[in-house]
């Protein structure tokens, strides 16, 4: 990602950790199988050949699961909103080969809506943030963002600052 000259990253917003944990729970459960297999094989008297086969299969199984987990983590980590002092860049990492990047200027922000849905989201403090921009019908959305109210306040603060800057430039130009 290339920033404009003089542009500064203020903060990044990713989905809440609960999302990545819930997405990888199945993988983590599958990763327990080799440990059960190895502990079971240590209690039973096995020939060394059989032990090495079990060890080989366990390592192979864990290697595949590790790669799957890392793909999930990569999709989580690269799916981000980058708030700079000029714009918000919305990078949607749908999967490894499916990616949407859009951006809007901070002074174009018109309306921010927070949606906290459900008990877990309320307890852990995450929710969806919708941003409506001026002149366009498109809404920008980040799902399951942590501390959504805090993020909203920060965006509004930066929006106000961007407006003041834009007005200052206009007055200066007259």
């Amino acid at each position, binding site marked *: 990602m290339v920033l404009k000259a003089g542009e500064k990253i203020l903060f990044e917003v990713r989905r809440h950790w609960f999302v990545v944990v819930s997405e990888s729970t199945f993988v983590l459960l599958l990763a327990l199988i080799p440990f059960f297999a190895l502990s079971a094989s240590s209690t039973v008297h096995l020939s060394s050949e059989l032990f090495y086969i079990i060890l080989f299969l366990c*390592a192979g199984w864990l*290697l595949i699961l590790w790669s799957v987990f890392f793909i999930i983590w990569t999709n989580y980590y690269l799916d981000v909103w980058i708030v700079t002092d000029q714009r918000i860049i919305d990078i949607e990492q749908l999967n490894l080969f499916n990616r949407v990047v859009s951006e809007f200027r901070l002074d174009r922000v018109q309306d921010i809506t927070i949606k906290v849905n459900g008990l877990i989201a309320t307890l852990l403090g995450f929710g969806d943030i919708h941003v409506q921009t001026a002149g366009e019908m498109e809404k920008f959305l980040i799902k399951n963002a942590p501390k959504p109210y805090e993020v909203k306040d920060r965006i509004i603060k930066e929006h106000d600052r961007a407006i003041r800057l834009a007005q200052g430039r206009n007055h200066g130009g007259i």
Partner: protein
Amino acid sequence: MNELADLAEKFAPGILWVFFFVIMLFTVAVAIALSYHWREYAIDARKSNLIFRGYLVVAGILTFIMIMATLLY
């Protein structure tokens, strides 16, 4: 237990190597795709290098265990 031991004997090291190369093929393909993503799309290059190295280290340890298990079999 004897049946299991017989089954183990039937497992020729050749089959283990075939399994090994299939898993390696998958891992290398994933590593190339992930490396591209972390290089091209990450914001902080240093941090992304560190995260991707973590993946490679763990994958390397598991690969080493697989090779040793095959050689010792």
